[in-house]
């Protein structure tokens, strides 16, 4: 599926990051990140393993604390809001984990119901069932409803992970390596799903990846993370039409060429 037309509102950033810094012991992973994510935009963050891509979205979702800098999500400064406010904000952010992070001890149905029953007080059984069936249908895995996560393939786990975040109808989606460890055909299916989610649910997304096919097919804008900073930001062609020796090998060694 080709990336469809999107209505990106460039006047309205939903996430604003300024001067973000993060270090683990002596290793400075992020060294002054500036980022804007606009409404209904898919922003792809590209970078090598260990470059701090996942750290960036973990800071945005409040899982990690930044050492320095400002992260505003829907106008709320993540570092200063209360726990309660952060919890409410998180419901508006969907996080798809690299390894899906499905709850091992629960069936697919229970995995999907879990965030719903916890965050929508007074929800009826009928509404729960409708929501579960609707998101499973959206990811094309209705038949897996009573299966355990261990019975699913890698691609199916990714899809269920995305479905679990969609059930709360988030406005922002954060995808951590959505195609990592999957075969090329499943990668294409996941890329299509990311585009479909954007068009169907009008979400703004940050997609963390080192897969150029994923970047090209899902990204409205690409940001190349190198040495703890965004070195190049723009469309796919703008980012890779360069003689920068740090960026070129990334492109050259990828099968897309």
């Amino acid at each position, binding site marked *: 599926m080709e990336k469809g037309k999107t209505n990106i509102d460039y006047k309205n950033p939903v996430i604003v990051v300024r001067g973000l810094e993060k270090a683990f012991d002596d290793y400075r992973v992020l060294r002054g990140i500036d980022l804007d994510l606009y409404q209904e935009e898919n922003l792809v963050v590209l970078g090598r393993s260990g470059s701090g891509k996942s750290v960036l979205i*973990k800071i945005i*979702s*409040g*899982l990690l604390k930044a050492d320095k800098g400002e992260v505003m999500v829907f106008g709320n400064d993540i570092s200063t809001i209360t726990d309660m406010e952060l*919890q*409410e904000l*998180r*419901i508006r*952010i969907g*996080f798809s*984990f*690299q*390894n899906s*992070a*499905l*709850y*091992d001890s629960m069936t697919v149905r229970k995995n999907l119901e*879990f*965030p719903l029953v*916890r*965050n929508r007080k007074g929800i009826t059984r009928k509404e729960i069932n409708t929501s579960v069936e609707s998101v499973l249908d959206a990811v094309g895995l209705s038949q897996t409803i009573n299966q355990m996560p261990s019975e699913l393939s890698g691609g199916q786990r990714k899809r269920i992970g995305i479905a*679990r*975040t969609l059930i*709360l109808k988030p406005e922002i989606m954060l995808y951590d390596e959505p195609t990592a460890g999957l075969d090329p055909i499943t990668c294409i299916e996941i890329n299509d799903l990311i585009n479909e989610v954007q068009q169907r649910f009008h979400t703004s997304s940050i997609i963390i990846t080192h897969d150029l096919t994923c970047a090209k097919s899902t990204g409205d804008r690409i940001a190349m993370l190198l040495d703890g900073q965004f070195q190049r930001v723009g469309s796919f062609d703008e980012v890779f039409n360069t003689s920068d020796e740090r960026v070129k090998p990334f492109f050259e060694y990828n099968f897309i060429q």
Partner: protein
Amino acid sequence: MNTASKSTAPAAKKGPSFKRRLSNAFVSLYDINKFILRFFREAFLPPFELKEVVRQCYETGVRSFTLITLTGFITGLIFTKQSRPSLSNFGAQSWLPSLVSIAIMRALAPLVTALIAAGKVGSSIGAELGSMRVTEQIDAMEVSGTKPFKFLVCTRVLATTLTLPILATYTAFVALLGGYVNVSVNEGTSYTTFMEQVFEPLTFVDFVASLSKSIVFGFTIGIVGCYQGYYSTKGTEGVGKAANGAVVTAMFLIFVEEILIVQIAGWFR
């Protein structure tokens, strides 16, 4: 002679210095205290995860039930058997039920139950939470607007704290049954007579001390298992360490608490 292998042999790794280890121990102590305080702050504030607490109580009970039945019965049986020759030397076999009951109620039942639960339940909690941590399931709960500490830690600690006194009471019953079987076979004592002699030397303080011990042991098993698992790191190796740490630390603390509670109970006798 292989001199090359000598010269290329890796230098022995130096462990962390004593100062560093002492500092780490204090940091861990501070962290676990913070963890306990957080439990008390969150466990008794709504929303209460009652359904999950009940589920965890069931898990705790079921996991230990068979082993506790077997161990409790054998403990009672063997203790009675081993005590008989000593009492026989003074012609005091008739005191056997009293001796067995004091030993079981005051010390053996809570201690045996706690040690078994530390092995079965504590390790399971450590491994389960550790695995959830390294596979990002705890993070997934957090980002979906659920408080994982409340759902995972508070429920498990409450479950072990509530279940252990029940299990210890059951162990006492089964151990006394083991003792009765031995006494009955050797002396032909009736069940009623045995039970009368069992309850005769026991005081209210014995029951309260035994119950308090079980509550403290249960809390220890739960909190140590959860702490080890919740903060586990380093992938699958970390999960193993969490499970192991949960058992070893809980067992050590159980013995320390046993000494302290015995001392305190002694002041009230």
